[in-house]
């Protein structure tokens, strides 16, 4: 006996199996990201006054990424609609754009991550604090930063002032008491930022791989069973929309607030 309702919907629920399956899976994902968002809120609400950073992320890059994902959401659903209207070539085009958008998103995200890892907070032995991006001219003896000196660590919490950076600060390494880059270990904000965006990025990668697999190697299923193929596109599209949905909340929460 073949498994029923794999392609055709069951009359009383109106659903085919994979559609119910993906929604159930998305429900669990809501709980997953929900727990992380709850953690974010908790950590932020309970942070001491003046210890939570603002504007540490580039808003324009974030906004671009938001546009990119929204575009990909549109193309994903247009791709499915094209299949419903029996326009396979058009589907191929739209879905190709979706995959490209995913790659662009990941590129921008990698750039942002790298930026954070190159950004150092340096505590000098004489008590001063330097903060900025490590430059390639740095050597074993001298650390070169594009950044600024601040009077106290608390000043660094407001990132809007980042643009007033001196192009070249030279710090002899033997005068450094400690230095740390803006990785997840730096404070709870960077910790939750990297976790939320990292997990999100993994979902982008996963979703893009599945969409690519259906678009490319598995495209021959369209010839054999168009309805089954369309369902697969719909189901992977639902996952993709969810990924976009999470970013719609991530962007203001991490970049703007």
């Amino acid at each position: 006996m073949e498994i029923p309702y794999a392609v055709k919907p069951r009359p009383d629920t109106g659903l085919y199996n994979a559609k119910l399956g993906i929604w159930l899976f998305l429900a669990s994902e809501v709980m997953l990201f929900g727990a992380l968002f709850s953690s974010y809120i908790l950590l932020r609400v309970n942070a001491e006054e003046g210890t939570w950073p603002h504007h540490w992320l580039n808003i324009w890059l974030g906004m671009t990424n938001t546009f990119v994902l929204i575009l990909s959401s549109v193309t994903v659903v247009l791709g499915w609609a094209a299949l419903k209207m029996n326009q396979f070539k058009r589907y191929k085009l739209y879905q190709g754009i979706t995959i490209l958008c995913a790659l662009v998103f990941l590129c921008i995200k990698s750039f942002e991550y790298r930026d954070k890892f190159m950004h150092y907070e340096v505590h000098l032995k004489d008590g001063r604090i330097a903060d900025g991006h490590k430059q390639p001219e740095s050597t074993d003896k001298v650390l070169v930063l594009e950044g600024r000196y601040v009077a106290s660590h608390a000043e660094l919490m407001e990132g809007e002032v980042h643009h007033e950076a001196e192009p070249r600060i030279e710090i002899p390494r033997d005068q450094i008491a400690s230095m740390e880059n803006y990785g997840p270990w730096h404070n709870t904000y960077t910790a939750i930022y990297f976790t939320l965006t990292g997990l999100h990025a993994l979902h982008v990668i996963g979703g893009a791989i599945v969409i690519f697999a259906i678009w490319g190697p598995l495209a021959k299923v369209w010839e054999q069973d168009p309805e089954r193929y369309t369902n697969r596109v719909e189901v992977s599209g639902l996952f993709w929309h969810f990924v976009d949905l999470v970013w719609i909340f991530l962007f203001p929460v991490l970049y703007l607030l």
Partner: protein
Amino acid sequence: MQPTPHDDPHTHESHHAELGFWRKYIFSTDHKIIGLQYGITALLFMFFGFCLMMMMRWQLAYPGKALPVVGTWLYHLLGPEMVGKDAAGHVGVIMPDLYNSFGAMHGTIMVFLAIVPLAFGAFGNFVTPLQIGAPDMAFPRVNMASYQFYFLGGVIMFASFFIPGGAAQSGWTSYSPLATVTNDAQHPNGQTFWIFGMVCLINSSLLGAVNFITTIIQLRAKGLNWMRMPFFVWAQFVTAFLLLLAFPPLEAASVLQLMDNLLHTSFFLPTGLMVSGQPLHISGGGSPLLWQHLFWFLGHPEVYVLILPAMGIVTEIIANNTRKPIWGYRSMVYSVMVIGFLSFIVWAHHMYLTGMGTRIATFFQTTTMMISIPSVIILTALFISLWGASIRINTPMLFALGFLPMFGIGGLTGLPLGFNASDIQLHDTYYVIAHFHYIVAPGTIFALFAGIYFWYPKMTGRFMNEFWGKVHFGLSFLFMNLLFMPMFVQGLEGMSRRMYDGAATYAESGGVVGLSKYIVGLNVPISHAAWALGLAQIPFIINFFYSIKHGRKTGSDNPWEATTLDWQTPTPPPHGNFDKPVEVFRGPYEYSVPNPRRDFIPQNEPSQPEPLTHGNPVRS
């Protein structure tokens, strides 16, 4: 609807070539094989977890004495840091770190690698599609993947014992900051393995949950409407929802704790944390309570995951062996749904001593009291089902009957724990251990034994030996009670959990106030009961394997004369289960229906029973 070329049922199932050994038994997508895989793996882990406990009980009864025979093996396996020498110079004393890792892993293994995979993965997978008249689960390949994740998680957990530093040592609850600062010179350490293991197990459960829910909603046979479903299926359905929605926050928390451990973040580490007198070089700003909330958000629904399938199994067996419908089936269905819902909002009763405000503690206390009501309804309905019944005593029924008062004790002893005020005295004592073990050990595990004895004939066409089954029951029942009942007394006196020397340090001596010698002394009979319980499982293990080839043949596909669809298949059910689509005409427990020929009507039997002409039905 016209069948199309694409829907041809003959393309895959009935006429494909015989699968090779690997595809048939190892990389199978058949729910029955996967169920068996889960079952065997889970029983092996249960055995391993039990052995950990038996070793711990030696240390509790005879602190500082070398563990005979096994102690020497441990010494050679794990080295002198884990296994020390006693006063007489004999090797084989379990050191505190090893004791802690045994404790943490006993809990983890029993909950996540033994009970849930057996109750949900094994019984759920094997029985559910059969009971709803489906050819398999909705997503057979996802099913295979979920077993493989489980297996991988199990391997990782098992392997963690053998890495430097040993397995995780911070309790099955893995509280931060202990879980982060223990063994943190070593990376990866047992805790890292534990987290990766948990992530695999969580993913396995999530995939399983999606599969179960979709299967039950979509693949029910024609005529099998919701209120005609066996209670077993309802229980698995609600369990699946619990796993689906409660596990992800723990997965999130695990990722966060992993980052604390490996990347030196401070999600759960507060500012100013000192370890061994030195401040830790972390950013701080985190909260240990956050871990507890995220953990127990899963942790509480998890205990319902442990009990609901057991209730399902017991219900099926009681209906079958009382030869009458379950009393209050509808109430039980509503109750199980309410339990599922409420179980999500009671979790902080595990955290009464963390200093939450009184208002929120009262909230959780209220929901905790509320959830006891549907649990009592279910238990009461099962008890009332016995009234006026023609009770057949066989091994599955003995275990099912034993479950009832044992779960009753376990559940009722939970009430003082659910009240904030009394919990202040009882939290983290042996009372808690006794409470939850009563529910899981003579509770759930008895139900699982019942299930094994009950469904064994469907898998193999043979009964397990009835005499040895009764011996297994009698001895297990006796020793479980001897093992856990004294723990209530110890806990009420204030004996704490997780003490490596069995509270010997806190015993009264020479006028110093402490736990009475009697209380500490109870550790000895308790340990003896534990070892005797272990011995009592030997007949079961032998019976299980021996009966595969030598058990008494059933001579029938439906030897228990059961009404549910799982018994209306060939033995064992073939791939695809039913050769034509099943149609259901009646409810799940049509027993003792007036009928001259027999006292039950299977769910898929269309014909009406012949009307009585006069008097009692005559059996021809």
